[in-house]
């Protein structure tokens, strides 16, 4: 989409140009250089960029966010030209991990990075990036941590570790990987040679803000103005928007901005309800999005929205961003002890998914998502999976085919509940499903036989009690 945007015919939008409908409208910002790759078609020419792929729905060019589970929830990945806003969790523990995975994905794919932060030196941020799982040795350790998706039994090869099939069979670690989406080991650091081989630019606010401003004051805070100029400079100098005649760029720029909106950026929306610069952040986001739309870049922003006093600003910021994800960690909240959230570290809310070049968007049907940081890997799961796993410990395996219909998300809940109720009342639990009338016959995927050890521990004498007044069940 970014490339298509740059090719919009040079019709300027200045007032004088309106009366004439000619194509040779001259704006002060003239594009004379070769356009960014693939002017009108986002097809074969753009796919040649490493680490990108076109979306199946609208042909939009996508990059991976660094977490394949998140990619899937966002409809394949993050679209180039868009902003991914991450609302930080309360103690800022998990959002830096997503931020770093995004940057690490850029290094592994050979993309150019632009890291902006007011808290940490970008060089230090890059040192702390997680190591990618690329070689065969780590596959065994990865096996246990993999995302436990309950796919139908047709996937005979991989039942539990089905994600394992996606892992590449690569032997060497190289800076350029042709795969889309990698897994990262949060406990190891990225190899130094990968960082040195990559092309990155850092923006550390305390260093940049000391120099004098050359632009006339507008209502943006100086930090934001400097950052916008820095980004625009990099985009122009390295040719990501196709306007520089000397540079022909066939690469993607990944921009990461950390803790945007925090007081360290000079913005007071986290301190006061009606600050003096309440439009600073929203203006910044608008101009940033304008820059992104006309270049081959994707941006991740983490923002401490839980600190913003004025809820209006949060709503406006959400509207001005393309994709918005909120992280909510369980630390310190009463959800930590809730058995439904056992083993999970927090919830992940997909607040907004953009509609790009389309009337509809790829909204995932699963809304209750939780994440956990298991030793090394950051996984995202459907909360109900946990509940189902616990249920499976209580109910006999013969019922699993009823309970595991994740995709219909309890749409046939009455069927499942009525069957499980019947199981207590029926003499032989294996046939309880026959008691319930349902519209289409369900295939029994388990053996149907009850293992006494796993049966409902409700009877003291080991015999099932007869329920009065029910249909007679053959023993």
């Amino acid at each position, binding site marked *: 989409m970014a490339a298509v*945007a740059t090719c919009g015919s040079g019709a300027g*939008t200045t*007032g004088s140009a309106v009366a004439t409908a000619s194509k040779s409208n001259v704006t002060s910002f003239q594009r004379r250089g070769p356009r960014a790759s693939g002017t009108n078609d986002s097809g074969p020419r753009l796919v040649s960029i490493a680490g990108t792929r076109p979306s199946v729905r609208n042909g939009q060019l996508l990059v991976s966010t660094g977490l394949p589970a998140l990619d899937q929830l966002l409809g394949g990945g993050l679209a180039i030209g868009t902003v991914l806003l991450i609302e930080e969790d309360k103690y800022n523990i998990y959002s830096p991990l997503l931020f770093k995975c995004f940057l690490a994905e850029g290094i592994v794919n050979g993309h150019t990075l632009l890291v902006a932060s007011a808290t940490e030196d970008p060089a230090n941020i890059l040192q702390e990036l997680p190591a990618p799982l690329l070689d065969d040795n780590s596959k065994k350790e990865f096996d246990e941590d993999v995302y436990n998706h309950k796919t139908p039994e047709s996937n005979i090869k991989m039942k539990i570790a089905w994600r394992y099939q996606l892992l590449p069979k690569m032997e060497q670690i190289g800076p350029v990987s042709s795969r889309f989406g990698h897994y990262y080991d949060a406990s190891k650091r990225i190899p130094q040679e990968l960082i040195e081989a990559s092309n990155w630019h850092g923006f550390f606010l305390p260093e940049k803000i000391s120099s004098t401003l050359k632009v006339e004051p507008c209502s943006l805070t100086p930090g934001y103005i400097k950052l916008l100029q820095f980004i625009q400079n990099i985009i122009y100098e390295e040719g990501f928007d196709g306007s520089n005649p000397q540079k022909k760029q066939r690469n993607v720029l990944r921009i990461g901005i950390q803790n945007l909106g925090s007081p360290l950026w000079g913005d007071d929306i986290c301190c006061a309800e009606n600050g003096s610069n309440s439009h600073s952040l929203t203006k910044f986001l608008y101009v940033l999005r304008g820059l992104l739309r006309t270049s081959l870049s994707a941006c991740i922003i983490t923002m401490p929205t839980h600190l913003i006093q004025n809820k209006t600003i949060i709503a406006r910021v959400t509207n001005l961003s393309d994709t918005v994800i909120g992280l909510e960690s369980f630390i310190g909240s009463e959800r930590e002890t809730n058995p439904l959230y056992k083993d999970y570290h927090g919830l992940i809310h997909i607040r907004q998914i953009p509609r790009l070049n389309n009337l509809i968007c790829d909204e995932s049907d699963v809304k209750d998502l939780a994440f956990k940081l298991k030793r090394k890997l950051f996984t995202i799961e459907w909360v109900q999976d946990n509940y189902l796993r616990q249920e499976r410990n209580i109910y006999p395996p013969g019922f699993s085919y009823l309970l595991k219909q994740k995709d219909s998300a309890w749409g046939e809940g009455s069927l499942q509940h009525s069957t499980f109720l019947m199981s207590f009342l029926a003499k032989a639990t294996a046939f309880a499903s026959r008691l319930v009338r349902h519209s289409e016959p369900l295939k029994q995927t388990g053996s149907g036989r009850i293992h006494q050890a796993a049966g409902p521990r409700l009877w003291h004498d080991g015999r099932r009690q007869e329920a009065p007044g029910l249909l007679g069940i053959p023993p």
Partner: protein
Amino acid sequence: MFVELNNLLNTTPDRAEQGKLTLLCDAKTDGSFLVHHFLSFYLKANCKVCFVALFQSFSHYNIVGQKLGVNLTVARERGQLVFLEGLKSAVDVFFQTQEEPHPLQFLREANAGNLKPLFEFVREALKPVDSGEARWTYPVLLVDDLSVLLSLGMGAVAVLDFIHYCRATVCWELKGNMVILVHDSGDVEDEENDILLNGVSHQSHLILRAEGLATGFCRDVHGQLRILWRRPSQPTAQRDQSLTYQYKIQDKSVSFFAKGMSPAVL
């Protein structure tokens, strides 16, 4: 242009009313499909359209427009469509000093005064060309969307003034139509947005309100559309007519049905 929506609104591109202000409002959902509808509707009705697109880029509207049967690039070259791409212009205004007043001049100013340059742009775009033959039927102003102006630092009153000036010029003087999209913030107390929304809905002849379902997300019913016909100039002796439908957005069209009558449920 969605044929079903035309039927609901009882209009066709050939015999649409003139001098009307239509307000598109969305609450908890995305109402941009209505913008695409009206854009293709008026382009097919052979009107001269001025599109102030502040929210998305030109290529986005173009690609969706092609699905709905209009080609924005061709319309722009022919002179039928005047397109102000907010995102691109904002970058231009912000990084380069402009010699002449730019429609989005307020981005550079510390205390944004008014939207006069933007109004001048609209007036310049829609003024009738004295070429003798009338190529276009009537002018139309399309704004997507007005809440962005609030986010960019304009006050609600300044935006209302802009709408008033545009209405006087486009609807009354040039006998054209206006279509405006405003987000409804809902339970977030955005006072400026509420002022703006109330002000514009008071002046509008037709209000289309896209709401998310009260029960939450549903795969088969994407939302609810409320249509309200108003007569702001005449005293409301008769009650304003209002209809409610639910809709599902598909790849190239939107299907409407009465509440609870979704084909998926029946």
